């Protein structure tokens, strides 16, 4: 068959197909009294393949209204398994002295001349290594590990888990005792594709981010604020409590069905408005998603119902809904099994400069215990996790050679954030344990690209998250031109 005959046959086939679709379209209109609008209706009318095979864009544009594919434009979810790694933020609200746990070094990766306003004494701080070769403030000579955060981690995470975890810090100056630091990257992570099968974003505080930080670059999906476990349960199971609990399961589902039918009709009234098409689409998607959730068989995210996780989180089956470890454990489980997208935990009490070291050490150890539990939970589920530890500002001690000097005041210039990445198949490869460095003045170097700007530091964390996911193709579409190539090379330490 020569090329000419092939082309003629192709044209004939296209003509036949088009006539058939035209007939389907007319039949649909006649039988339904309206044109096909939704994806389902288009499929029902046999028009979806038609739209795909049309070769005249302007004609296709006239044939199919812009909002017709609304259902196709719903935000994607992790249903069926998101390819992106579980992402958890742990914020220590108040200004934790993270730089007195992990031991920051100078640009040459040498110890600072002194740490005497960082509560660690002179420059010869004993070092305890973990996560490969990462330095933490070590034994003070009495068998006491100075870094209580490390003590907490080791108390709750097994050595096997720690051997499969990488750690990288990002020194960055931040505002003390402030919610104005744009450290949150859950919006960026969601934009990269981690949305959760049912709940896009979980948080703990009434704010845009679910914690006491502003967001960096991209506003996150509105978080479900988890005040106690029943908030998650209520979000996953409509009518689990309250007046709707008097209805049967089918009747509760029917409520959503009626809301959907009414709303679909009602949103057509706003299509001419600015943003009307988007609003209509989002309403349709949101209600449809609720129906999907109501119909789906759901694995429990309740940490109390999982014997192994109960051990990790130190809770018993009868623990209260408002027990912090019940809440944290359940939120973490929701993230690990893909029910939730980004998960933001927050611990309070980190504005702990009360002229003692006792309160600070206790809080640091509690934070470490939470970090260890998150890593251990991931290990239990055999899942990767990327954990981001933040705070607002830091502390200063009196000038002292004491390796356990008390915390006297705020000092945001000594701020630092952590990244920890667990991979059940083995410790993720890293090229360094620090993005940027500290100066001899015992502060984050703000001449480094991320050292003086929390939003850039947060962006660097996101870049490392993408690298950990082997998705550097998303840098440009999600992060844009925040960093040039040279800067990306400086800030990416994973992989």
């Amino acid at each position, binding site marked *: 068959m020569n090329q000419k005959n092939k082309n003629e046959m192709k044209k004939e086939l296209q003509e036949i197909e088009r006539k058939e679709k*035209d007939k389907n*379209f*007319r039949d649909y*209109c006649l039988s*339904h*009294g*309206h*044109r096909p609008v939704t994806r389902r209706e288009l499929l029902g009318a046999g028009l979806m393949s038609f739209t795909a095979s049309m070769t005249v864009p302007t*004609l296709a544009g006239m*044939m199919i*209204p*812009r*909002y017709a594919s609304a259902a196709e434009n719903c935000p994607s979810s992790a249903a069926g398994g998101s390819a992106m790694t579980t992402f958890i933020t742990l914020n220590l609200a108040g200004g934790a002295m993270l730089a007195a746990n992990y031991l920051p070094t100078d640009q040459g990766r040498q110890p600072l001349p002194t740490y005497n306003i960082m509560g660690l004494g002179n420059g010869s701080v004993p070092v305890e290594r973990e996560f490969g070769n990462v330095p933490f403030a070590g034994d003070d000579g009495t068998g006491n590990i100075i870094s209580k955060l490390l003590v907490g981690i080791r108390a709750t995470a097994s050595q096997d888990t720690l051997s499969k975890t990488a750690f990288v810090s990002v020194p960055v100056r931040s505002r003390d005792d402030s919610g104005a630091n744009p450290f949150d990257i859950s919006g960026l992570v969601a934009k990269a594709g981690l949305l959760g099968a*049912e709940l*896009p974003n979980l*948080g703990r505080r*009434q704010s*845009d981010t679910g914690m006491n930080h502003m967001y960096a670059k991209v506003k996150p999906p*509105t*978080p*479900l*604020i988890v005040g106690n476990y029943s*908030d998650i349960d*209520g*979000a996953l199971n*409509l009518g689990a409590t*309250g*007046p*709707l609990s*008097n*209805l049967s399961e089918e*009747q509760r589902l*029917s*409520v*959503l*069905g*009626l*809301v959907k039918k*009414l*709303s679909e*009709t*009602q*949103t*057509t*009234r*706003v299509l*001419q*408005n*600015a*943003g*009307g*098409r*988007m*609003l209509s689409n*989002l*309403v349709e*998607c*949101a*209600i449809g998603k*609720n129906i999907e959730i109501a119909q789906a068989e759901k694995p429990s995210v309740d940490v109390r119902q999982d014997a192994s996780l109960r051990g990790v989180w130190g809770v018993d089956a009868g623990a209260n809904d408002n027990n912090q470890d019940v809440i944290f454990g359940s939120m973490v489980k929701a993230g690990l099994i893909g029910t939730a997208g980004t998960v933001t935990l927050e611990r309070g009490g980190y504005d702990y400069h009360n002229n003692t070291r006792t309160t600070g050490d206790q809080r640091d150890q509690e934070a470490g215990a939470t970090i260890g539990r998150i890593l251990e939970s991931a290990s239990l589920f055999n899942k990767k996790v990327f954990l981001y530890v933040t705070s607002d500002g830091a502390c200063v001690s009196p000038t002292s050679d004491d390796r356990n000097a008390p915390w006297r005041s705020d000092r945001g210039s000594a701020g630092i954030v952590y990244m920890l990445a667990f991979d059940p198949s083995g410790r993720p490869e890293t090229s360094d344990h620090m993005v940027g460095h500290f100066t001899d003045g015992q502060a984050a170097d703000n001449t480094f690209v991320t050292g003086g700007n929390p939003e850039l530091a947060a962006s660097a964390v996101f870049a490392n998250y993408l690298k950990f996911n082997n998705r550097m193709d998303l840098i440009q579409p999600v992060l844009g031109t925040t960093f040039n190539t040279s800067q990306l090379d400086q800030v990416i330490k994973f992989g």
Partner: protein
Amino acid sequence: MKNMLRSFWKTVSYTISFLLITVAYNNCGNFNSDGGQVASSATTEALNGDIVPLPNTKTSSVIRASRVLDNLVSCLGTIEPSTASRQEWSRNRGTISEEGLANTISQPMVKSMVGIAAQVCNDLLQKEIATNPNERRIFPDVDLDNGGFGTNQLTLVSRRLARSCWGRNPTDDEITTITRDVAATFSGDEDNRTATRNKAIYLCTSMASSFSTYEM
């Protein structure tokens, strides 16, 4: 010559087909409830998902979180929200858009609207139960004590709820949808007090959490 003629008629037939399809398509059904065609709003949405206001065009928005409870209390006429309603709103307000921007609508937000509406509807029901039937605002025709919530009462109640919460009369299509769904959902239930009250909660919640209630 023959080929030229064939080509000419082919072009003519394509053109006529195209015009017929376009005309038939545009006459096929209601584009929107006003009978007008739907304008493309492609230019109103920036690539980053933000909504760009247009001159002389209303910008879509929804009720902001701080107003959700007050709005429901007002439209359902319960005057004061119960503790349960306040708690439900407080627990869920974080999922509802702070600014009412159209691009912030999410699955948890819609679910929260349903949950809060259910609580305020329960406030309404309890208030109406305690009120003389002739003095009830929404359910005067319904025997909430002994049962009795037929199609006629359903239509009347739906109209009252729509006028109150949607600010307009329901369309015939909406009434049809409501009566059909209520009938199907409660088809196996006896016409007793429990079923009647459940129907009242079902109807009120569905209407009070549909889009027209929280559209701004």
